[in-house]
């Protein structure tokens, strides 16, 4: 009788029940306090690879008093945060000035950690268009 053993490599992450995970928020808004627009928390038994994150701001209505606004995508883990993509902008006296940060990534997010999209606009009057989004792949850990 011949006895053999086979060392079978574990499939790559994208072959382990992988599904796309996409979150996106975009809106033309008046000045507002810092607000979380989306969260994605990684459930037990899974991991998430974030592949791209986008933060975008554009002044669409001139402010009475300019203030700082931002769009931000971050990962929160155990009370600590790290920015994946962030754009800060003073709401300008000229409309339609846009800033954008599109970051390609291969960042693993573990169970219990959260991807968060925030926006803020500290001006008085006027409007700002904010976009925060990311795309990743969730797979069996």
């Amino acid at each position, binding site marked *: 009788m011949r006895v053999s053993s086979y060392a079978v490599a574990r499939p790559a992450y994208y072959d382990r029940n992988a599904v796309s995970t996409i*979150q*996106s*928020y975009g*809106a033309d808004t008046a000045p*507002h*306090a*810092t*607000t*979380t*627009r*989306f*969260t*994605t*928390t990684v*459930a*037990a*038994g899974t991991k998430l690879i974030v592949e791209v994150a986008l933060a975008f701001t554009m002044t669409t209505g001139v402010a009475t008093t300019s203030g700082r606004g931002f769009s931000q995508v971050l990962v929160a883990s155990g009370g600590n945060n790290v920015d994946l993509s962030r754009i800060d902008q003073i709401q300008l006296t000229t409309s339609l000035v846009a800033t954008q940060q599109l970051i390609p990534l291969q960042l693993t997010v573990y*169970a*219990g950690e*959260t991807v968060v999209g*925030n926006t*803020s606009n500290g001006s008085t009057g006027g409007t700002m268009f904010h976009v925060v989004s990311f795309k990743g792949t969730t797979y069996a850990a």
Partner: protein
Amino acid sequence: MLIRCSMIGQGTPSDPLSVDLPTYTVVTSDATVRRAFVDVPDIDVPSDVAAFVTANPVVDLVSPLPNPFPASLARSWQDHLARRYDLGTAKWKPVVA
């Protein structure tokens, strides 16, 4: 599932206004009344909470709920999320508002 929830937080960069859920997307929100319509994955909403939301429709951010959200359903939702995310404790405490 689209649900109108209460918001928590101070609206600062370190403590943003947010909905106390693990996974959601804001459709629209109002910092003054501290409510938001959020899109929540169906798998994160227990059937009893889903039934309450369906039975108590709201069309804007300011009108009161037809009936108050029962504490028993709030607890049910917390326990469901703790199980789903396998945390063992009810970390999130969302409230239909």
